[in-house]
């Protein structure tokens, strides 16, 4: 089963990716799938902006517009941002802690395939029936009232995808707790690993409420329950709570890894260790903790009463404190440094003012009494795009350029990278800055059109032009990826020259077993310490020995496929005259359970890479 690098055919490569349990290949899968969904979500955004280009436009119908806005939000959060963040976590975190893989490689693969099948299921709604149309929040009274299967696609698709995320989160938690290299104490972990750690804990606590909410909705819509039907004694507000108890931490699940990526970038390209590392760790943990205390600020106008609103307002504003600490720490990481403006660094530098803008409007929104005006207007749209695009998406672009050599062994073109940056950065601010004012002038969000004469025309044109600039930036990035892949100029271990953490001590891409010998970590920025002492690589912490590796497996794909099939049965069984729904549902679930059963009874002890083979491989891995 050894997958030592050999020339293989196309079919073999596909099969390899379908069965892989290697965190680096799973990272490729997350990157490709997440990137694809990012393009789909972006296309939906462009349609939205074309529709809003002028008043009373009829580019899309009112109903289709609601589907577009719902799918744009859902796709971008669950199917683009989350998996792309997971791509970098998978690619980098195990390397940063000096591990040979994640704790449960099989589960890692299962997490990916669950996400992919969930995402595919959700997007099939465009072709099979109608897409979900109650917003990415899918508030219960509206979503329960919808006819057709749109909302069913949402509930079932997210359920499957969410399961994958939960599994991934648990896996990362166990990995970071148990698999750190000798000497890698918690307070020596790179910042990106720290944020992965905190985020995994957030996933562990935030996804179950979503799972519960989605189950209740699934049963309401497909199996005749009445959890959200007020006339039957149900309650729709409970959905809002479930959704936001998940939904607010979700925002931090996205932004904390972004903070992690930027922390790495600021340190690398300033040639300076992260300023105030321990306070950064503290701030990360505090943000994660407070993230669970503020969900009701999404519900200030729901009518929870002045006491609840006041408590949640103050808690929300409090988050500004640890976030502020981070901003200043980044600034002072650069202060006194030796800054090189590479593409990743440009994104990082641009992130500070962009994210700050989203942060200050966040405080304003957190102040409940003002929020009554901002709530559900374009002001909110502007705010969360400033934090999610200006924070998360900037980090994803920065991370893509930074880690491309580590993931694929070749560098993205810097000139094209900078063109992408300029186009996207200008487009981003054009699109969203003006939307603050649209909201203040009285334009609600999620409107498919607006009437002329309210002063919204010019601003919407500006906003739409900006969206196209962003699209142009993304296209340049795609061209860059193609050119880079075709040229495929291989680079060495530390292509940026200033790498500080363990991943830069390995070849690009690293061998499939990562570390020939686990490295000895002697402090924060382990690789930097060795470099400064004139060493070429890490000191090994163990003698050369056989390496135990897990076998590839097709079972994760099958487990996920079973749920995918079952979802169709669950969705269609209630249709008039439908006879195949229940059998398909049962078949799908049995298929999944059967696959799990096979996995349980079949002994799979993996394989060993013999010592001799590693000695031959002297140009790879850690140089002793």
């Amino acid at each position, binding site marked *: 089963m050894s997958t030592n690098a050999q020339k293989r055919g196309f079919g073999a490569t596909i099969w390899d990716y379908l069965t892989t349990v290697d965190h680096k290949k799973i990272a490729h899968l997350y990157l490709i799938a997440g990137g694809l969904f990012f393009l789909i979500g972006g296309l939906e955004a462009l349609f939205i902006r074309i529709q809003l280009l002028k008043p009373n436009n009829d580019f899309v119908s*009112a*109903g289709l517009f*609601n589907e577009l806005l719902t799918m744009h939000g859902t796709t971008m959060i669950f199917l683009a941002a989350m998996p792309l963040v997971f791509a970098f976590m998978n690619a980098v975190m195990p390397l940063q802690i000096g591990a040979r893989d994640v704790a449960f490689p099989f589960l890692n693969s299962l997490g990916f395939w669950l996400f992919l099948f969930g995402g595919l299921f959700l997007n099939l709604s465009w072709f099979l029936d109608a897409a979900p149309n*109650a*917003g990415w929040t899918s508030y219960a*009274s*509206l979503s329960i*009232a919808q006819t057709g299967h749109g909302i069913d696609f949402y509930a079932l698709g997210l359920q499957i995808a969410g399961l994958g995320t939960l599994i991934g989160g648990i896996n990362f938690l166990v990995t970071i707790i148990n698999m750190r290299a000798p000497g890698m104490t918690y307070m020596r972990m790179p910042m990106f690993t720290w944020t992965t750690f905190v985020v995994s804990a957030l996933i562990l606590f935030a996804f179950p409420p979503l799972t519960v909410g989605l189950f209740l909705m699934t049963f309401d819509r497909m199996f005749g329950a009445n959890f959200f039907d*007020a006339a039957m004694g149900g*309650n*729709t*507000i409970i959905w809002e709570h479930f959704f936001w108890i998940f939904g607010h931490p979700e925002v931090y699940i996205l932004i904390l890894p972004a903070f992690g990526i930027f922390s790495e970038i600021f340190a690398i390209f*300033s*040639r*300076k*260790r992260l*300023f*105030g590392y321990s*306070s950064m760790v503290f701030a990360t943990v505090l943000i994660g903790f407070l993230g669970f205390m503020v969900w009701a600020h999404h519900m200030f*106008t729901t*009518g929870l009463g*002045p006491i609840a609103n*006041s408590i949640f*307002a*103050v808690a929300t*504003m409090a988050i500004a404190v640890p976030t502020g*600490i981070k*901003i200043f*720490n980044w*600034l002072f990481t*650069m*202060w*006194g440094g*030796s*800054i*090189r403006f590479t593409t990743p660094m440009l994104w990082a*530098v641009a992130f*500070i*003012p962009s994210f*700050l803008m989203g942060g*200050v409007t966040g*405080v*304003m929104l957190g*102040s409940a*009494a*003002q929020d*009554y*005006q901002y*709530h*559900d*207007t374009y002001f909110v749209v502007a705010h969360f795009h400033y934090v999610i695009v200006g924070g998360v998406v900037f980090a994803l672009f920065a991370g893509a350029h930074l880690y491309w050599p580590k993931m694929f062994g070749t560098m993205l073109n810097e000139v094209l990278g900078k063109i992408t940056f300029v186009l996207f950065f200008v487009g981003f601010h054009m699109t969203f800055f003006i939307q603050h004012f649209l909201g*203040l*002038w*009285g334009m*609600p969000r*999620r*409107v498919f059109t607006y*009437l002329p004469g*309210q*002063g919204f025309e010019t601003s919407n044109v500006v906003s739409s032009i900006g969206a196209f600039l962003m699209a142009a930036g993304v296209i340049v990035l795609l061209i860059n990826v193609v050119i880079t892949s075709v040229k495929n100029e291989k680079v060495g271990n530390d292509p940026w020259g200033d790498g500080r953490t363990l991943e830069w001590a390995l070849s690009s891409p690293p061998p499939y077993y990562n570390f020939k010998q686990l490295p000895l970590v002697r402090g924060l920025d382990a690789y930097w310490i060795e470099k400064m002492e004139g060493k070429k690589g890490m000191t090994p912490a163990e003698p050369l020995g056989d390496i135990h590796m897990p076998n590839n497996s097709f079972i994760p794909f099958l487990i996920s496929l079973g749920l995918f099939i079952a979802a169709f049965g669950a969705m269609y069984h209630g249709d008039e005259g439908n006879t195949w729904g229940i059998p398909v549902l049962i078949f799908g679930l049995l298929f999944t359970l059967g696959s799990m059963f096979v996995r349980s009874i079949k002994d799979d002890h993996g394989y060993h890479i013999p010592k001799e083979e590693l000695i031959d491989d002297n140009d790879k891995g850690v140089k002793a």
Partner: protein
Amino acid sequence: MKRLAKWRLVSLFAILTLVLSACSGQPYLSTLQPAGEVAKKQYDLMVFSTIMMIAVMAVVAVIFIIVLVKFRRKDDKIPNQVEGNHAMEIIWTVIPILLVLVLAVPTVSAVFNFADVDAMEKKNEDGTSDALVVNVRANLYWWEFEYPNEKIVTGQELIVPTDEKVYFNLIASDVKHSFWIPAAGGKMDNNTENVNKFWLEFDSKKADPDKLFQGRCAELCGPSHALMDFKVKALPRAEFDQWVTNMQNIKEPQDATTDLAQQGQEIFNKSCIGCHAVTPSNGTPADARMAPNLTNFGDRNIIAGYLEHNEENLKNWLSDPETYKPGNKMTGTYGELTPEQLDALTAYLMGLKVQGE
């Protein structure tokens, strides 16, 4: 040269005024041109917090610019690896805490102030209250306004007295909506299962009879969410009382005055009256009121919530409601109307006015 400088100054001011006026939006619609106590307090909070935030951003901007200018890579030297600085870290932890506290005080005080609805809860012996109360019932794409003390119902156009607190009971009859009059103050949701209460006040100096305040639905409620608008007519107390009296005087459906309108009334009584009431008394229970009350339709300023109030729009709306408000509940509840029938109905509906004695 001097003239040029002067000209520059003038143009600068002109641009500034232009930008400022462009930045505050339309007076009947914008949160930045508050027309009542609630909106004013919210506007003051916005300005206060914006100034505070700009100060924070200025500090960051200064450090940011210095860093980017001063610390570019010039040589291959390895900079000093600084771990941190406790004094500075404490400063940028404590100052934000103080700023948050400074903002928290007016926030909490305003939250409690906006939620203070004691006056509407104080009931007289006959169950009415001294404060003006409006029950707002939101429906798929239309608004009903019931005045429980005055025992009248109207729809689509909210009529309120100026310079006094108006209290609202908010509920939705189908899916969740949100009641928002930007110029008068922040919104509150119309939930399906519970009544939300809050108050607004409308400033007589800002009320313009030619450009009524714009109200809208702020919570996604379906295809026509964007078109679920309403108007707010704010009248001096005396005029408001007069309007209430006029409404109360209509006990029976008003008879049409012209022949054409009479034909219209016959059509109306056959096809429309099942859902649309033309008397203001609230005899029908709230959840059985299927469509807006049309008692004072002829006096209103909008058709279907957002179209300009004229005969052509009314005919368009009646002949093809689906085009004008996708997903509305009126489509298909009556047969196709001939042009003659449309003329007759229009004449009748436009004649539904509430006159003084």
